[in-house]
């Protein structure tokens, strides 16, 4: 009697609970619909890749999924739990800071370039844009210093000097030299790009002053562009004595088919000593100047791809000498292949994208001391390759803990 009267209600409730419940239970237990990617060791010690995370995107027709590949295999963004996705992925180092120094990291944008750490301090320095303040331009330096010994945090703010002349300013590195905190900024205003150093006394929390490092005026010729960038190298949250700046002038060349191509006109490399505040041009041999460069401590590594692999030429800026070059052999070399390079703990990590469907990329680790290969591996689809014909993997970043 009761059932008969309520059947519609019972039916819809039951069907809803079952269908929705089954769907979510199935989502948890079902295998991933995407292929598994692994780093297959070709040669060397597998332990070398324990600390590597490769980030990329998996494409299959209208699907694109962020993917993370480590020694243990691949993890797709959709496989991460809701809470994990909510927390975001600012990278291992920033995540570690967020767990270890939760309150210090509160409200700080997790960009490795804004942090520096030594045995006593963890320092954050950034520019915040606050258009509602009285400060012309609205740019404000924000500095936080955590004394790791007594767990005390000191914060202070300061309006960026000459803010009204700036169109844009960003902190590109934070460094500690003795008791001095240095913010290296890149700014753009009044038709020139400038790299400047702002220093603060960490004992008294006061502003010491600013020193110009470099500037590039906007070229008079219409289609020429000057750009200054920091050379990649030692992780930016580590203390280093030097920073390397690369000034490149490019010219946009209009091609016949209407498209345009940019051509490098000039490429100058400078080293800035943060202790002595001296800038010096790095006189690299001509053929090295145009090559891709990465630094570690006081050595610059120039890299070029040829038919045997990647040729690495070290150059020490202290004794101003080119050292013995070495070649990183690549199993299948493609001159146009995109590659990512990083240095950590005296090792050079190279990730090269293949163009072959099945062999997606190769990863090589070389000891910088000896030039010998420590590890070589391939990123490949683990099992059923045939099922995922239309798919492709693009790796866009390599993280080394």
């Amino acid at each position: 009697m009761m059932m008969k009267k309520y059947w519609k209600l019972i039916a819809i409730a039951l069907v809803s609970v079952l269908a929705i419940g089954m769907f979510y239970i199935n989502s948890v237990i079902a295998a991933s619909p995407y292929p598994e990617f692994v780093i297959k060791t070709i040669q060397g010690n597998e332990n070398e890749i324990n600390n590597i995370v490769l980030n990329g995107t998996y494409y299959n027709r209208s699907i694109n999924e962020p993917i993370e590949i480590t020694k243990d295999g691949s993890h797709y963004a959709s496989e991460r739990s809701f809470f994990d996705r909510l927390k975001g992925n600012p990278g291992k180092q920033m995540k570690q800071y967020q767990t270890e120094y939760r309150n210090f990291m509160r409200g700080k944008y997790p960009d490795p370039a804004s942090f520096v750490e030594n045995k006593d301090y963890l320092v954050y320095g950034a520019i915040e844009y606050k258009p509602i303040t009285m400060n012309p331009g609205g740019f404000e330096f924000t500095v936080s210093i955590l004394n790791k010994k007594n767990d005390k945090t000191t914060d202070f703010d300061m309006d960026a000097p000459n803010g009204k002349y700036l169109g844009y300013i960003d902190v590109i590195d934070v460094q500690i030299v003795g008791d001095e905190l240095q913010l290296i900024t890149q700014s753009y205003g009044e038709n020139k790009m400038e790299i400047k150093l702002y220093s603060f006394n960490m004992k008294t929390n006061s502003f010491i002053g600013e020193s110009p490092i470099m500037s590039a005026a906007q070229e008079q010729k219409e289609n020429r562009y000057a750009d200054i960038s920091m050379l990649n190298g030692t992780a930016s949250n580590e203390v280093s004595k030097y920073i390397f700046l690369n000034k490149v002038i490019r010219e946009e060349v209009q091609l016949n088919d209407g498209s345009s191509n940019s051509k490098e006109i000039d490429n100058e490399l400078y080293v800035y000593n943060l202790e002595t505040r001296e800038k010096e041009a790095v006189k690299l041999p001509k053929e090295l100047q145009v090559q891709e460069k990465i630094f570690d401590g006081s050595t610059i590594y120039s890299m070029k791809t040829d038919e045997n692999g990647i040729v690495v030429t070290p150059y020490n800026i202290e004794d101003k000498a080119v050292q013995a070059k070495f070649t990183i052999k690549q199993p299948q070399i493609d001159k146009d292949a995109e590659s990512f390079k990083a240095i950590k703990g005296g090792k050079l990590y190279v990730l090269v994208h293949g163009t072959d469907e099945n062999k997606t990329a190769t990863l090589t680790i070389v000891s910088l001391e000896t030039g010998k290969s420590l590890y070589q591996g391939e990123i490949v689809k683990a099992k059923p390759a045939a099922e995922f014909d239309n798919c492709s993997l693009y790796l866009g970043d390599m993280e080394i803990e």
Partner: protein
Amino acid sequence: MKRYLKLVNFEFNRFAKLYAVLLAITVVLQIAGVIVKSKSYLNQANKAINEDMIPKAQFLSETGPMSMIDITTSNWFFGPIALCIAAVAFYIFFIWYRDWFGKNTFVYRLLMLPTARLNVFFAKITTILLSTFGFVALQLILLPIESTILKWMVPKEFRVDSIPQEIIRSMRELSIIIPQSFIEFVLYYGAGFTAVAILFTAILFERSYRIKGILMGIAYCLVGVIFFFTPVLIEEFLQVNYFYPLEMLGIEIGIGVIVLAVSILVSRFLLNKKIRV
């Protein structure tokens, strides 16, 4: 409890006919969509390969194989969903106003029932929630069926099979209706439930104070929404990110519960003391 269930049953049965029609439209249109889309794809393939003499491999690389995603992005698929969404939105208002404007002011009898008047509110909001879940369930049942029909119609070499999770993720609208994890499902529909409670309270303001009540109802909605988003708005305005995402989620859940509780209390007050028949 029994009174409440009786009221839910009563409310649901009043909606049942229209609801059944909506379910039927969804089933018919979506399945028709699979058939029509598959047929037109096969015709296209047939014409290309047999008439224009394009090799099969070339056709596949140029046009691509057929998949459920071609169907979900067509109006055959989303049309009925949009219709159901519109119907629920309309029914949120109609579920109250039919009692006043229907034959022989039914609301009079409804409010005279020997039970807490708030049960009327709960019965109506349960009906809205349950019918929404019914639509979601139907879609979840239909997806594998549609995939199977596609498998019958299109030969293997011309199609890509995908599981329901993939189909849902490939379409933004669908992944809002059916979120990726159960936690998100609870959060999304909890937020929806709260929004409906706010709207119900606004309707009751109007039913209590008529013209003046419209303004009160609109003001109530605005206050509710602004209060709910206060932490986000403050962070946005001051340009700080003081809270970690998980903390923000906790705060928002807390505020959501407060907004819901206030809506229920205000509705009880209006139903008990101010409602006009």
